């Protein structure tokens, strides 16, 4: 292919360093002002927004949790009625799973993965912008509906027939189902971007065995998203069809089946747990290196464990349905696979322990959160093995034992690593350090508060307290522990508050961060804190798994890229040999228009099937505007 001869091109080799960074900054900039903010496709800006929004949803979901705990602190409390309570636990669960946990993990990767693989922007940056707007719209839909007393009240997994046309009257269940559609579109979009970024945009020389573990984790997670999310899209769409146009998927009277819902939901729902968990363990494996001051023990084992977990995740869904009366053999198979998944988890835990054992650990707040994670997650994993056995599960199904179990794995297994990650990568994102003293305080409050809140729930469950009850009678033996749980939740909340205060204070007044404050080995630390719009003035050339440690005398880089168009390097899948100097799309407002058109179509379609027909026209127009070439240098080649 011949390079275009017409325009005189500007290359990085032709200019001095200062001119080079000026030219790149001009080419890659996000203009200031509202329009610039709406049209930007910079993965760092969008990633930051995503992370911020997800934490807002965490805080909102936390407020709901606090309300539940106040209500349950004493028997026969009058703060919340049964209807409001139903909405609140459904909102809490749906919000935490779909608006916080999954998006926040993808958000961190949107920010970090391109930096860690040494490229200048994520693949399909406009799709990335679109996915954020869709996510925001889905979250707004759920919370605005809740404010209007239209919040879903059918539990976060919306079992039929409760959510079907017969019992779930009104639009509450449709709000749940359509919120799913929004979040799944955005999650799928990000998954595609991440797969392609990790496959094709790695820095030259970053062969498969030189990919940071967090990036591996996100690759596996993205495939889980791609394979699992279509199931929930199908489930929620068919539910809306049943409710809106009278199909009979879930109506046994006309040949439908209610268990079909549970199969579809959990075929997605169980991998979902790993969609939340795998990024978290990836973060741990990556963060542990600078704090243990040695390479993570067993890189191959860690990566293989991620892949094995990803595959096994699809063989587990039936363990959520043990009490639904399935054939015996089915149960045994799923018990075995549920227990088998403990093996890769165990391998990773031993690798981390070995890393710490052999290292010279520095107990800064990120490492505290890692240790807190290991302890909590092991407890959650143990109760997991317990509920994988059918007789035991039959006893504790739908009790607080299960509530305790999944908060141990979700908060212990995902939120702890995430909080550690915030402390760890905060300097990269903001250019400032978080306060270490506040970090330690918030760790201890959260760790103690968490265990004191959730451990007694195991006992409550064994004592027979069902989940999803809005109150209980005074003569039941539960009130002492419930009061204890609620008081402990105050400690937990205080810990989270302190964490948020630390973030906000440090963002403005924190100590200025160096480029690599932790002496960490991965590529995001090879650029400035925060990184410039173009990430790297010259694309790094990678020779090892720990490029920043191994090339202390100077990072090997490549030149020859143009500075007058957004250019990045496409490399081969396995060995990362350079293949092309590809253009990366410029800022564009069209993703926002496309998101608005899609939002109108999706919300309208809760009320009328014709919305899909008429609503798709503006969406198509917006997509054409998005893809039509604008004659910029990025369009040439």
């Amino acid at each position: 292919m011949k390079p275009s001869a017409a325009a005189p091109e500007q290359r990085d080799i032709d200019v001095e360093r200062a001119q080079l960074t000026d030219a790149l900054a001009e080419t890659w900039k996000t203009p200031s002002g509202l329009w610039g903010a709406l049209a930007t496709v910079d993965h760092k800006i969008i990633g930051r927004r995503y992370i911020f929004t997800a934490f807002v949803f965490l805080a909102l979901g936390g407020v709901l949790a606090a309300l539940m705990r106040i209500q349950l602190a004493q028997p026969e409390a009058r703060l919340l009625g049964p209807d409001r309570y139903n909405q609140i636990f459904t909102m809490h669960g749906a919000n935490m799973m779909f608006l916080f946990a999954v998006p926040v993990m993808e958000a961190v990767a949107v920010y970090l993965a391109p930096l860690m693989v040494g490229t200048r922007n994520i693949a399909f940056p406009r799709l990335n912008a679109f996915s954020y707007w869709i996510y925001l719209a889905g979250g707004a839909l759920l919370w605005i509906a809740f404010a209007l007393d239209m919040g879903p009240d059918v539990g976060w997994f919306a079992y039929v027939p409760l959510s079907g046309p017969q019992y779930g009257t009104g639009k509450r269940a449709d709000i749940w189902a359509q919120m799913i559609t929004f979040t799944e579109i955005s999650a799928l979009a990000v998954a595609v971007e991440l797969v392609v970024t990790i496959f094709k945009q790695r820095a030259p020389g970053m062969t498969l065995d030189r990919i940071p573990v967090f990036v591996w984790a996100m690759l596996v997670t993205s495939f889980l998203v791609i394979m699992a999310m279509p199931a929930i899209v199908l489930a929620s769409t068919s539910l809306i069809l049943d409710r809106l146009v009278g199909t009979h998927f879930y109506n046994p009277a006309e040949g439908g089946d209610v268990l079909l819902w549970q199969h579809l939901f959990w075929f997605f729902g169980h991998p979902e747990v790993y969609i939340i968990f795998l990024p978290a363990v990836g973060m741990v494996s990556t963060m542990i290196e600078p704090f243990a001051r040695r390479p993570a023990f067993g890189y191959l084992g860690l990566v293989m464990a991620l892949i094995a977990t990803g595959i096994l995740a699809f063989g587990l869904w039936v363990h959520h349905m043990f009490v639904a009366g399935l054939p015996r053999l089915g149960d045994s198979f799923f018990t075995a696979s549920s227990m088998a998944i403990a093996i890769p988890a165990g391998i990773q835990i031993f690798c981390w322990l070995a890393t710490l054992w052999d290292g010279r650990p520095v107990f800064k707040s990120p490492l505290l959160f890692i240790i807190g994670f290991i302890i909590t997650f092991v407890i959650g994993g143990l109760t997991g093995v317990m509920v994988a056995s059918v007789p035991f599960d039959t006893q504790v199904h739908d009790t607080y034992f299960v509530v305790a179990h999944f908060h141990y794995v979700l908060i212990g297994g995902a939120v702890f690593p995430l909080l550690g990650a915030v402390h760890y990568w905060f300097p990269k994102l903001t250019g400032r350090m978080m306060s270490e003293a506040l970090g330690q305080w918030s760790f201890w409050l959260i760790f103690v508060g968490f265990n004191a809140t959730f451990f007694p729930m195991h006992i409550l469950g064994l004592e027979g307290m069902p989940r999803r009850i809005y109150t209980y009678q005074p003569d039941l033996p539960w009130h002492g522990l419930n009061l204890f749980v609620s008081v402990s939740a105050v400690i937990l909340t205080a810990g989270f508050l302190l964490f948020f205060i630390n973030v906000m204070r440090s963002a403005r007044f924190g100590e200025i961060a160096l480029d690599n404050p932790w002496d960490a080995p991965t590529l995001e630390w090879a650029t400035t804190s925060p990184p410039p719009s173009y990430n790297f003035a010259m694309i790094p050339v990678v020779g090892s798994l720990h490029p920043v440690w191994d090339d202390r005398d100077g990072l090997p880089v490549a030149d020859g890229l143009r500075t007058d168009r957004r250019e990045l390097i496409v490399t081969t899948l396995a060995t990362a040999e350079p293949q092309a100097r590809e253009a990366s799309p410029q800022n564009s407002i069209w993703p926002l228009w496309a998101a608005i058109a899609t939002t109108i179509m999706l919300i309208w379609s809760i009320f009328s099937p014709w919305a899909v027909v008429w609503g798709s026209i503006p969406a198509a127009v917006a997509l054409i505007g998005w893809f039509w070439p604008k004659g910029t240098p990025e369009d040439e080649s």
Partner: protein
Amino acid sequence: MREKIVLDLGKLPLHGMGTASVTWWGTLAFMLIEGTGFALVIAVYLYLMSLATAWPINTPPPDLLPGTLVTLILLTSLIPNILLSRWAEQQDLRKVRIGMVMMSMIGTLPLIVRIFEFPALKVSWDSNAYGSVVWTLLGLHTTHIITDLVDTLVLAALVFTRHGRSPRRFGDVQDNAMYWNFVVATWLPIYGCIYWLARL
């Protein structure tokens, strides 16, 4: 960090084709998503079928004619489609233009026959679960034909503008052709399901 230059990338092409193109991989990923979706709807079909005492529920099996006609049209369309992809690979703009116009017209044909295919199912989506799942299968596939057709039309317009003569456009044409192959390939199991499983 200090840097040392070890590699010159100036000789690389300004755009990668085939597996060197990110859009090619993106298209593949979307095909994986949608392929999973199709497989799941087929799984739902089989699941409901396994529960029913008689299948189809209270209706005769669908008429073979329109569906088989669509199958033949789709299969035949593969020939010009693969040719078009080849011309795009050779970057022959004149032939690509002809091919795009041809595929725009061929893409509308199955949609016309589809209009007769829905009544030929002889069941409504709200009659029973069987009706719901066959309408969903057919509807989902029809949506894919429509989206690919719209994409083809826009791209056909584009190759007649000054933006046509660019490796990037030829890459788009190839990706679009690959997607059409996918739409045809996914139809075959759906066709087998709707028309032949109902006759077992």
